[in-house]
C-alpha cells in the first residue's frame, strides 16, 4: 500500500545498475526508505509534532502528562514508580527535564552514598527500610533486557553513632522507635565499644548505637545510571534543558467558610534549551518539583510564596542549597576492614573507602560557619580547623593522616525542620514536591518516589504514610524535627 505512494523518481532508481550490485538483486536500502516515508506520513497526521519543515528532534515533546523537573535520583525514582504503578502500559507520558546531563553539581553524584535506619522519626525509618530492600533486590526492580546486572558495591558495614552524656537518653528512645519499626540496631556501652573497636577513644562517649543489618554505603552513580537506563526502557523521555517559566491559570473559589481562595493550575512548562534562546512549551497535566538544591527557584516560578507573609499564599518553600565538604585521606595505621561509618558526638563522620587504607569523611558546619553556596570550591582550612581535631580525638590513629583529595556538594537543606517535602501544594494544585531532604535524599529516594507516584496516581499515600511531610506544615508551623542529621 505504501509502495504505491512512492514518487516516480524511485521507479527509475530501481532499474539503474549501481556499482557493487549483483546482477538482478536490489541493493537499495528498501526497508530504511519505507520506514522513513512512514515516519513522514505519520508526522503529517494529527497528534504528532510536525517535523517536516524544521528538525525539532532535540526539543522535548509538545505534550506530556507529567513533567519532572530535575533528573537526579529523586526525579528518576518518581519517574520509575509512575511507570511501574500506572494502570495500563503506556498510560502515562513522562518527561524528565534535567539541566545538566553530566550531573556535575547534582547532589546525587557527589553524595557519600550512605544508607542507615537510625532516625528519630518513624516515617524516615520506614523509608530507609523500604529503600534497603529496594537496593537489595535492585536487579529485579531495574532489570533491562540484554543489559548487564547492576553492581551497587554495597558495603553492609553499618553506621555507628556516638552519643555524649546529654544525648544518651535521646539516643535510647530513638533506638526504641527504630527497633519498633523493624530496624536491627544494637546499643553499646563504652566498654563494649572498646572491645569491639579497639581503635576508638571512648572519651566523652556515653552510649553508642550500631546498625547491624541493612545499613552501610553504596555507589550512588550506579543507582543513578541504573534508574536512568530502566526508566528509558520504560518509555520515559529525557530532555536537557532548563525550566524557565510556568504558564498557569487561576481560579477563584470559595472554601466552606466562604473565604476566597485562588487556586492555580499549571498548564505549560517552558523548557529552554542549553546554550540557546530556543524554548519549547510543553503542555502538561502534572509537574513534579524534584530539583534538589534549586527547588525553591522552581517553586517561585510557579508562584509559591507570592503573597503577604504569614498566609498560605505567602509561604515560600524553605529549601536552600547548603555546601558540604567531603575529604579523602590516607592513613595506613587506621581502623581495619570492619570499620562502620562512624558519626562522632561532634558531628564529624568518616568511613573506609576501598581496601587500601583510604577514608573519607567530613563534618556539617554550624549555622555560623556555613560556607557560601555560590560555587563548589573546597575549603581545606575547614578540614584543618574543624574536622581533623575531632577525628584525631576520636581515633588516635588519625593523627597521622594525609589528605588526598576533597570535593563539595549541595544539601537541599530544609531550613524549617531538615526533613523532606512530599506531596502536592495546597494552592498550586498540580505541582508535587519531592525535595528538601537535607542530606538523606539518596537513601530514601526509592521510598519517596513510590510515595509521590501513589499520590499522583491514587490521590493518597498507600505504602508509607508521609502525611507529616506535606507542604502545609510550613504554614501551620508544625515542625517534625529529625534529630539524627549527619
Amino acid at each position: 500500500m505504501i509502495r504505491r505512494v512512492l514518487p516516480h523518481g524511485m521507479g527509475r532508481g530501481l532499474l539503474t545498475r549501481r556499482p557493487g550490485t549483483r546482477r538482478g538483486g536490489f541493493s537499495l536500502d528498501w526497508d530504511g526508505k519505507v520506514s522513513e516515508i512512514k515516519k513522514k506520513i505519520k508526522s503529517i497526521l494529527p497528534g504528532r509534532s510536525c517535523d517536516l519543515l524544521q528538525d525539532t528532534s532535540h526539543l522535548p515533546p509538545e505534550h506530556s502528562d507529567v513533567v519532572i523537573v530535575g533528573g537526579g535520583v529523586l526525579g528518576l525514582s518518581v519517574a520509575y514508580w509512575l511507570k511501574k504503578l500506572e494502570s495500563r502500559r503506556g498510560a502515562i507520558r513522562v518527561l524528565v527535564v534535567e539541566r545538566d546531563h553530566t550531573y556535575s553539581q547534582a547532589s546525587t553524584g557527589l553524595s557519600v552514598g550512605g544508607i542507615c535506619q537510625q532516625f528519630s522519626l518513624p516515617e524516615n525509618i520506614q523509608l530507609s527500610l523500604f529503600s534497603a530492600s529496594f537496593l537489595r533486590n535492585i536487579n529485579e526492580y531495574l532489570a533491562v533486557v540484554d543489559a548487564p546486572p547492576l553492581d551497587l558495591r554495597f558495603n553492609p558495614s553499618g553506621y555507628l553513632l556516638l552519643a555524649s552524656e546529654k544525648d544518651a537518653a535521646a539516643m535510647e528512645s530513638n533506638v526504641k522507635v527504630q527497633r519498633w519499626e523493624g530496624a536491627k540496631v544494637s546499643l553499646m556501652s563504652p566498654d563494649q565499644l572498646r572491645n569491639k573497636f579497639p581503635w576508638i577513644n571512648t572519651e566523652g562517649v556515653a552510649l553508642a548505637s550500631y546498625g547491624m543489618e541493612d545499613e552501610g554505603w553504596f555507589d550512588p552513580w550506579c543507582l543513578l545510571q541504573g534508574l536512568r537506563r530502566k526508566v528509558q526502557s520504560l518509555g520515559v523521555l529525557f530532555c536537557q534543558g532548563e525550566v524557565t517559566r510556568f504558564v498557569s491559570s487561576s481560579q477563584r473559589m470559595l472554601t466552606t467558610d466562604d473565604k476566597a481562595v485562588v487556586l492555580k493550575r499549571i498548564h505549560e512548562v517552558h523548557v529552554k534549551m542549553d546554550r540557546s534562546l530556543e524554548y519549547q512549551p510543553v503542555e502538561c497535566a502534572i509537574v513534579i518539583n524534584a530539583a534538589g538544591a534549586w527547588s525553591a527557584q522552581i517553586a517561585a516560578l510557579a508562584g509559591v510564596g507570592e503573597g503577604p507573609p504569614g498566609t498560605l499564599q505567602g509561604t515560600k518553600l524553605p529549601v536552600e542549597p547548603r555546601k558540604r565538604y567531603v575529604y579523602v585521606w590516607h592513613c595506613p595505621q587506621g581502623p581495619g576492614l570492619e570499620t562502620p561509618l562512624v558519626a562522632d558526638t561532634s558531628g564529624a563522620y568518616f568511613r573506609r573507602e576501598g581496601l587500601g587504607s583510604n577514608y573519607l569523611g567530613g563534618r556539617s558546619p554550624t549555622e555560623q560557619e556555613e560556607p557560601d553556596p555560590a560555587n563548589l570550591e573546597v575549603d581545606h582550612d575547614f578540614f584543618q580547623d574543624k574536622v581533623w581535631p575531632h577525628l584525631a580525638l576520636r581515633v588516635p590513629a588519625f593523627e597521622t593522616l594525609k589528605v588526598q583529595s576533597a570535593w563539595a556538594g549541595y544539601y537541599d537543606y530544609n531550613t524549617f525542620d531538615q526533613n523532606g517535602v512530599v506531596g502536592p501544594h495546597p494552592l498550586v494544585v498540580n505541582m508535587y514536591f519531592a525535595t528538601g531532604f537535607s542530606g538523606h535524599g539518596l537513601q530514601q529516594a526509592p521510598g519517596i518516589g513510590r510515595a509521590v507516584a501513589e499520590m499522583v496516581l491514587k490521590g493518597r499515600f498507600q505504602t508509607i504514610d508521609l502525611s507529616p511531610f506535606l507542604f502545609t506544615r510550613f504554614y501551620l508551623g508544625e515542625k517534625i524535627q529529625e534529630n539524627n542529621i549527619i
Partner: protein
Amino acid sequence: MAAPWASLRLVAPMWNGRIRGIHRLGAAVAPEGSQKKKRTILQFLTNYFYDVEALRDYLLQGEMYKVHEKNRFRDKEWIRPDKYGHFSQEFWNFCEVPVEAVDAGDCDINYEGLDNLLRLKELQSLSLQRCSHVDDWCLSRLYPLADSLQELSLAGCPRISERGLACLHHLQNLRRLDISDLPAVSNPGLTQILVEEMLPNCEVVGVDWAEGLKSGPEEQPRDTASPVPA
C-alpha cells in the same frame, strides 16, 4: 555361612525348632549352653537342607533391617537425603537435639532463606560453598550466630566480595574461615591479610597472600663458578 552370625551381636534371637522367637531383640534369656546346642542343631540342618538355609537367611535379613533402622543416626556424621532427595521422617524425632553443623553447599539458599539457619543457636559449622545466591547482604545477616559459630566456608560463592567479608567481624568465635575461590573479590591477597587482621583468632584459609603480587625483575642467570649467595 558363619559370617552373618558375627554381625548380629545386638540380636540374640531365640531359636526353637520352630522359628517363633526370632522377632525378639535384645539379650538372650536362654542360658549359653542350650543356645550353643540349638545353634549347632540348626547349623547342621542348614548345612544339609537348602530350604532351611533359605528360610534362615530370609529371617536374618528382617532382623538386620530392624537393627539398622534403630541405629540409623548413630555413629553417622551427616544426615543426608536419600537418592530421591528426601530426608527420612525419623528426623522429626530429633527436634530437641541441637544442630551443630549445616552443609548448604551448592544450595539455592538466599537472603530470606537464611531465616531458617539463623535460629540454630548452637550451630558450630556452616558451609555455604558454591551457593550462587549468597551475596554481601546475606553475610550481614550472620551475626546472630556469633556465639557458637566456629567454622564457616564461603568457597566458590560468585556473589561475595570483600565488602561482605567485612561484616564477618561479628563472628569472634570463628576459628576457621574458608574464603578460597571468590571471583568477585577484587584483590584476594590483600583481602586475606585484612580479614586475618580483623579476626585474629581465626585461621583464614584459601588465599595465598602472595596472590596478586607482581613478580620482581627476573634475576640474571648466575655464573656457575660464583659462590652461592647467602
